[in-house]
């Protein structure tokens, strides 16, 4: 739990850095980043590690929870929770919320990015003498006229007459994301859901971060207070920044 948990903390930090481009970057920058993340071999390895970590963290957590429940077959008639924190007592519940969130999150974004055949592509609109012209961005930095090409295999641009590939586009994850949170019917619900999931994440980290070091035996009279402080900051700041993004998108013009 400790090792996978800490690895997932690293993943969170990286993921957050990428996501923040939704606020601080252009859509092209974000989509470039998204493409990089889905194609770079090193990132691929990391992403597989992440999937395995999530899986392992979840399965291990579930097993532990069952074992722990079995260790007390008859419960108490009266309990008083004053000797431990809410977060520490509810890691399994919080973890489950996060797991549900991760699944929906992956269906909404990751799956679209990977498998959606009708994924929109990054476009650039320019003023031309003939009026507004919509161009597709290509991955090598040039443009192709949207009217002049045919999109095949989701991202490949083909000259329809010559039947030749003339370039490759960026999947427009940026657009998908903005549309998702700005959806007229459900945008607010999606945003709220996301924020709530981040709240669960905050509590999960509030206990989990320092707990991981304790489980690894990485403690000390100077080290432990530092880890505790860092853990608390991490558990507040990271989910908060994550949560700000959909709120920003939802309320942006």
């Amino acid at each position, binding site marked *: 739990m400790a090792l996978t948990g800490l690895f997932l903390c690293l993943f969170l930090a990286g993921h957050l850095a990428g996501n923040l481009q939704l606020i601080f970057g252009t859509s092209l920058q974000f989509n470039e980043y998204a493409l990089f993340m889905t194609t770079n071999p090193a990132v691929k390895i990391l992403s597989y590690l992440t999937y395995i970590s999530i899986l392992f963290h979840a399965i291990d957590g579930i097993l*532990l929870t069952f*074992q*722990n429940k*079995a*260790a*007390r*077959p*008859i*419960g*108490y*008639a*009266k*309990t*008083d929770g*004053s*000797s*431990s*924190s809410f977060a*520490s*007592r509810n*890691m399994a519940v919080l973890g489950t919320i996060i797991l549900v969130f991760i699944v929906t999150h992956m269906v909404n974004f990751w799956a679209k990015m990977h498998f959606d055949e009708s994924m929109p592509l990054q476009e650039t609109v320019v003023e031309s003498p003939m009026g507004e012209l919509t161009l597709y961005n290509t991955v090598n930095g040039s443009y192709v006229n949207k009217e002049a090409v045919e999109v095949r295999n989701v991202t490949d641009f083909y000259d329809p007459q010559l039947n030749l590939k003339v370039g490759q586009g960026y999947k427009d994850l940026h657009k998908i994301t903005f549309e998702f949170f700005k959806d007229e019917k459900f945008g607010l619900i999606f945003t709220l859901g996301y924020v709530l999931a981040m709240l669960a994440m905050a509590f999960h980290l509030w*206990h989990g971060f*320092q*707990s991981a070091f*304790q*489980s*690894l*035996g*990485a*403690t000390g009279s100077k080290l*432990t207070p530092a880890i505790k402080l860092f853990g608390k900051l991490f558990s507040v700041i990271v989910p908060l920044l994550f949560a700000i993004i959909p709120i920003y998108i939802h309320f942006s013009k």
Partner: protein
Amino acid sequence: MSAAKNININLKIWRQKNASSKGSMETYKLDNVSTASSFLEMLDQLNEQLVNEKKEPVAFDHDCREGICGMCSLYINGRAHGPDTGITTCQLHMRMFNDGDTIYIEPWRSKAFPVIKDLVVDRSAFDRIQQAGGFVSVNTSGNTIDANSIPVPKDDADKAFMAAACIGCGACVATCKNGSAMLFVGAKVSQYALLPQGKVEATQRVLNMVRQMDEEGFGNCTNTGACEIECPKGISLENIARMNREFLKASVK
């Protein structure tokens, strides 16, 4: 000091004929309890009342009544050893309660501590963990080296003592939501790991004690910290971290 006065209380106590029968919470009314009495003296008073009514008295474990033998237990109003901290049940005094209070009294709940009768549980699992490795393998001939021939840094000796102060009452297991015995085992492992005399067998000791702990059916530690709060001797969580270190070290050796 507040002067002693008499109070009337209601008691809800777990009654169970023997290990194989099904128990239930029963209600009793007890009048004229002096607030200067200890909690166990209050139970004596109840039992005297029950015996005089020719009813079966409540069985509960107790012996030294000065907080050191570790025999007394009781989960009182949802907390191990009751509402006060840093003490055992025998040191809990009735001045912690008010006239008209309803007090819940339950046995330690753990798969590894089966109920024998009423509030009495079997804690021999702790003995078996100790037998698996909680010792230094030295013969009792007295022909060892002079006690002062190996200096022990005061800090280490003090830490070892603080770990060795564990009275084996089982409050850590009772209060842990997972029914984990890590504080108990951690304290024992730590005591020996901190002293030069115990270092020789450190690897085997931690592996054997942890194996036995797992076999007994205790739950896993999720670092909620409740054990440290409820421990009548204030055994520190640091002992669990130290055991984790020792265990990792021993596992990779």
